[in-house]
């Protein structure tokens, strides 16, 4: 039963981005520019759009119906391993950073007295269980979680305009920002983290789940308002100079919301628990992708690399003492990241064109 699963793919796509955006993105963008934040957001987003376009186009050159693992394996196992192992390394580091960072956020928001190893164990355990259930289960779970979570997310997004002061939008055209000074700021490049985990999965899921690339692009464009909201809600609430001081600007802005008819005091917590559920799925997806790459090297049942990987991630996370180490880890990961989001899509596209040319020549002969 091969059916079009565009809905599920779009759900996973949104989940994998929203979970990270509201936590990591606003802080970095606020740091990178004084005002007119729409410009760095749009520039970053356009770059991302181009990359995802190249990636999808590259897959399409090979018929658009198979995963990049099979595509690359057709060109030899060594080539495939050489091209995908850096991606696996990158994903592993992303999984470690995400797990550790979110455990830290959860601890500071919900569970100040619970030991972090327990929080990480539950987060990782859930993700590994979902990854174990397989690709299709991940995507169906995503659909259910989106159905449950999106109403809450939308509610909080709308209500967080409660304390907005619209004068903070100005100046729309700031001289400093218009000279693209943010391009020289490391924070701008760090902000790109939110784009990098999310889109590579599009190459891994076919042919089990087929989708229409055009609709994914549409979903991708929908990300722009989300990015703008994540940055502008804290700016409108506090102003840039205050907002930049916070560790998690968006959540701080949501904290200010006061809804008298609700029995709960902190609406932002509901937002946060939705994000956590999204993160669990993102982790599951990332772990599943690493396992797919690892299984290429050695044909074993799924659970063997899964358990080894989970153990590695968990142990590394236990040895990370604080945010500073986490930040350094993010910097070390920059080369695999550039490889994964720039080199791999471009290489795929080049290979795709050559493949198409070859087939054309063959067809003419």
């Amino acid at each position, binding site marked *: *039963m091969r059916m079009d699963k565009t809905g599920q793919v779009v759900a996973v796509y949104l989940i994998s981005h929203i979970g990270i955006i509201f936590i990591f993105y606003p802080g970095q963008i606020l740091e990178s520019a004084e005002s007119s934040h729409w410009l760095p957001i749009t520039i970053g987003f356009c770059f991302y759009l181009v990359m995802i376009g190249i990636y999808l186009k590259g897959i399409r050159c090979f018929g658009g119906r198979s995963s990049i693992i099979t595509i690359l394996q057709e060109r030899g196992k060594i080539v495939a391993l050489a091209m995908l192992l850096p991606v696996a390394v990158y994903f592993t580091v992303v999984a470690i950073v995400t797990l550790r960072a979110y455990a830290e956020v959860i601890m500071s928001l*919900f569970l100040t007295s619970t030991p972090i190893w327990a929080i990480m164990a539950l987060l990782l355990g859930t993700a590994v269980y979902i990854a174990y259930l397989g690709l299709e289960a991940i995507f169906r*779970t995503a659909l*259910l979680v989106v159905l*449950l979570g999106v109403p809450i997310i939308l509610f909080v997004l709308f209500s967080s305009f409660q304390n907005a002061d619209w004068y903070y939008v100005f100046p729309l055209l700031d001289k400093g920002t218009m000279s693209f000074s943010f391009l020289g700021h490391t924070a701008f490049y760090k902000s790109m983290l939110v784009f990098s985990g999310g889109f590579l999965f599009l190459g891994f899921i076919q042919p089990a789940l087929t989708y229409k690339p055009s609709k994914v692009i549409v979903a991708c464009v929908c990300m722009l308002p989300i990015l703008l909201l994540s940055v502008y809600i804290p700016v409108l609430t506090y102003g840039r100079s205050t907002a930049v001081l916070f560790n998690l600007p968006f959540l701080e802005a949501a904290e200010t919301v006061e809804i008298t008819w609700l*029995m709960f*005091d902190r609406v932002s917590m509901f937002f946060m628990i939705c994000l956590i*559920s999204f993160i669990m799925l993102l982790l599951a997806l990332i772990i599943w992708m690493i396992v797919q790459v690892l299984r290429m090297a050695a044909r074993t049942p799924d659970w063997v690399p899964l358990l080894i990987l989970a153990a590695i991630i968990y142990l590394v996370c236990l040895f990370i003492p604080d945010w500073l180490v986490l930040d350094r880890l993010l910097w070390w990961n920059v080369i695999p990241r550039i490889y994964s989001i720039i080199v791999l899509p471009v290489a795929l596209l080049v290979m795709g064109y050559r493949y198409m040319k070859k087939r054309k020549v063959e067809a003419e002969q």
Partner: protein
Amino acid sequence: MKLFERVILRLGQDSDFIRFPTTMAGESVILLGYQTFFDFAETLRHLQAQSARIADTEWEVTPRLIQGLGEFLDNPDADMLVSLVLRGQLLIWFEARDRIISFTPTARILSRSIEAPITESVVRGSISAFVEDIDTNIGLIRKTAAAEDLRTHTYWTGADKQKQIVLIYRERCANPRLLEGIIQKLEENLGMNVQNLQNLSSMLGFNPWTGITKFNSTELPQEVERALQKGKVVLLLDRFPFALIVPSLLTDMFAVENDRNYPLVYTYLTRFLRVIGVLTNVIIPGLYVSLVSVNPDMLRIEIALTIARSRMDVPYPSLVETLLLLIILELIIEASIRLPKSIGPTLTMVGGIILGQAVVSAKLVSNILIIVLAATTISSSTVVGYHNSLTIRVFKYLILFLSAIFGLYGLVAGLVLICAYMASVTSFGIPYVHLMRPNGDANG
């Protein structure tokens, strides 16, 4: 004849087994069968009337009249004859000619007549329900579905092939992979004994430890009609007054066919209500525990204080408190199924008094918890089908324990785990989280 004596030897010791010598059409015959299956006097009268007409005809020249009596058995063996007798047939043995006819006698009525459903009440819609007799049930389905492409297959299962399972589907609608899978499994495992649904599910190759029922059972023919139209397959078991619809899907928790007898708005509103019911039942006990013991800062200060005040004299943690009362509630539900209808109200009254007043004034639990658990129990019954309510009743404990340890974070993890579990369940390639829509129907 050796064959006939073998049959008599195998069944003859039963007190209700008859061996009745008589004459038909001038020939001496012996009738064999269980008189508990049919009305013997009526059958005999019928046979005599038939044989009077046969009397003048020549056996070999016009066999048609004799065939009118029943089926001629060519080269029967003892097993076949025994199984015919056990299914309620009357065997007629023409001694001189050594021919056996299997005759369908006037059956005794061994079933209830068609009544209103007992486990699914219908407010507006047809109220005839299935009964124990499998033929009546097939008839009801045929009458309701009124479709030319309705196909039935009978399988005789068990070590001695005595238990009847009927497979029903619609040729044009049925999901081909599903149908193929079920037929293949049934044919592979014909030798298995099917006495209950656990047997049937192992016959179909389902995991016995699944937390989600793989059959959606219903008493109502209109539910079956809709399911068939959606491409599902229906199994009927003899002496089982429910139709079993395969696969059971998540939507079956929320939707019944009778919702469609109201304006569309109310259909959707009722279903939405059931979704809320399921969520309430699964989430609320866990939410109470996490808000009271782990994350009280989430609550508005007034509510937090009210809860704290009501729990002031309660000597144990909120998890124990909740578990204690939840188990009592489960016991009440179980007891009210067990009890005869005449004693049931007593139980409700006792339960109501104990839970409503005494437990609170004895300071064993807080009175907010009573409200929470009342909401939980009521909402566990809004879900469609008792088998589904069992599932969500169990799920809430997972969330309860995770919430007690991790607070709201545990609650979310529990919800995601449940979603993942439901998403991973498939039967014959059809995922549990799946909408099966009938062809050409806009609002499935």
